[in-house]
């Protein structure tokens, strides 16, 4: 996801236009002179909960850039930031020398600074990245902790068919009042489906899972129309 920047410009425009075309052509035309029935859909998403995991190339690039930057930088003014002889200063000097040794080799790093006895730092308790996903795993696709590094979208089930939550535009509502895909985020809480809606369930799916579900139920045209909203450009090869 981090190496796949979203192309907003043309994809977004074409997605909403083609979604509009698709919506008006697929839904049943109403009686008399009102024209094709217009559907307004909701693209409800939960933004990522965690920053993306580092790709090895990304980590290597950042490490290289950091090394170049530290090589070109002035020496850190330790006399200002640390008290003389203090433990943080000794830790800093040791870690600086260690970094220089690893990056530039022993000749340029020089001899190790005489820091004496440096007690180890308190261990930082690391929570596994999939900790909350595992805790909430029994809820399956209904869990809001799924795919913590990706954006997940809400799809609802109408009988056996999965679709975006939609509603028809009533007479008297302007076209610019009801957008075809209204984009929104869930901030807190859980969605509760009212009885009147007629949907049997919901799921939080990543972009890839949305594509798989739509293709599995024969809605390739729907996917082709809306894929721009998920950052998939025309001509992208899907893995």
């Amino acid at each position, binding site marked *: 996801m981090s190496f796949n920047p979203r192309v907003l410009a043309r994809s977004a425009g074409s997605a909403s236009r083609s979604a509009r075309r698709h919506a008006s052509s697929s839904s049943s035309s109403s009686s008399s002179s009102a024209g094709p029935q217009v559907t307004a859909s909701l693209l409800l998403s939960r933004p990522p909960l965690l920053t993306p995991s*580092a790709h090895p190339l990304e980590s290597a690039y950042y490490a290289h850039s950091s090394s170049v930057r530290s090589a*070109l930088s*002035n020496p850190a003014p330790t006399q200002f930031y640390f008290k003389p002889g203090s433990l943080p200063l000794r830790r800093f000097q040791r870690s600086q020398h260690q970094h220089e040794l690893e990056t530039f080799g022993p000749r*340029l790093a020089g001899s190790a600074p005489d820091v004496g006895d440096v007690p180890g730092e308190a261990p930082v308790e690391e929570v596994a990245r999939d900790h909350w996903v595992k805790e909430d795993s029994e809820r399956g696709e209904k869990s809001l902790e799924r795919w913590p590094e990706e954006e997940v979208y809400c799809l609802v089930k109408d009988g056996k068919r999965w679709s975006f939550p939609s509603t028809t535009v009533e007479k008297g509502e302007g076209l610019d009042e009801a957008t075809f895909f209204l984009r929104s985020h869930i901030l807190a809480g859980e969605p509760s489906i009212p009885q009147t809606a007629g949907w049997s369930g919901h799921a939080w799916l990543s972009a890839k899972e949305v594509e798989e579900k739509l293709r599995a139920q024969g809605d390739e045209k729907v996917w082709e129309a809306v894929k721009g909203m998920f950052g998939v450009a025309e001509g992208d090869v899907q893995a």
Partner: protein
Amino acid sequence: MASSSLRAIAGSSRTVAVTGTPSRLALTAAAPARVLIPSRGYATPSPSPSPSSSPDWSLPEIHVGQTHPSRYGEHYDDTLSSDLLYMTYNHRLANATPAATPVPEPRTPYELNRPQPLPRGNRPARPSAKVVRPDTIPRLESITIHTMVKEAIGNKQALLSAIMALRAISGETANGGGRSGSSGVQVVISRSGAAAFKLRAGMPVAAKVEIKGPAMYDFIQSLVDFVLPRIREFPGFALPSASAAKTSPSALGGVVSMGLPATAMALFPQVEANLDAYPRLHGFHMFFKTDARGESAQENARALLSGFRIPFHKR
């Protein structure tokens, strides 16, 4: 913080860069293999050799890329920019055709092919509206942090604390770390004097630093994750009142300005780490410059900032 009139006088001023110590590891193994080291006792900070002794080599161009992932930068790219596109879309502006300047009909043949006269008026031209489209979503361009120190009027040393605090908060030094765009902390010198405040022209009275690029998002991270949540009873930054002029230069410029008191400067983790090294801490102003222009530009800029978790409240 100093009074507003004092700041207004000192505001028209010139700046002086604060230089640092020479670098120690310049021209070393980070660059490609064949790099020659000059025979001076220390290496010059600037990449180009001085004209007095010009060796027959030149420093290869070293491009310093991003050194760490930018959390709020990625948030802007992934989520915030597309949300802003929806939030700031203005249907009327998007469909408005720009009014053509009326060219007067030539009444005599002598008026044909005359160059168009300059527009009249005693005010500068307003920036024209920049419609928000997928390729023109408001984006943060730079952040300027500015501290005016009233005590520095008779006493230059009073500025040192402010300079070091800005250096710690922004992490910027002039062309530091090979980034040619960084200006570093600059001292602001007054151009005009004010006898009421014992100010003369040419006195250093303030310090400022302009942050550009990924470093902006590092500053926002410190501000939003460490400082603002710990300010006591912080309601957010005040929104302009509903009666404020919507066509003023500040409303059309796309710049959001805000300030914090001295107690907030102590909450930055970079300053808190060695708090007793600063004899005095000062309040400061922040100017967030975006590329929004024209009608509702400042509102769009504020929408952008609120997406970075900077709160605003109605007065």
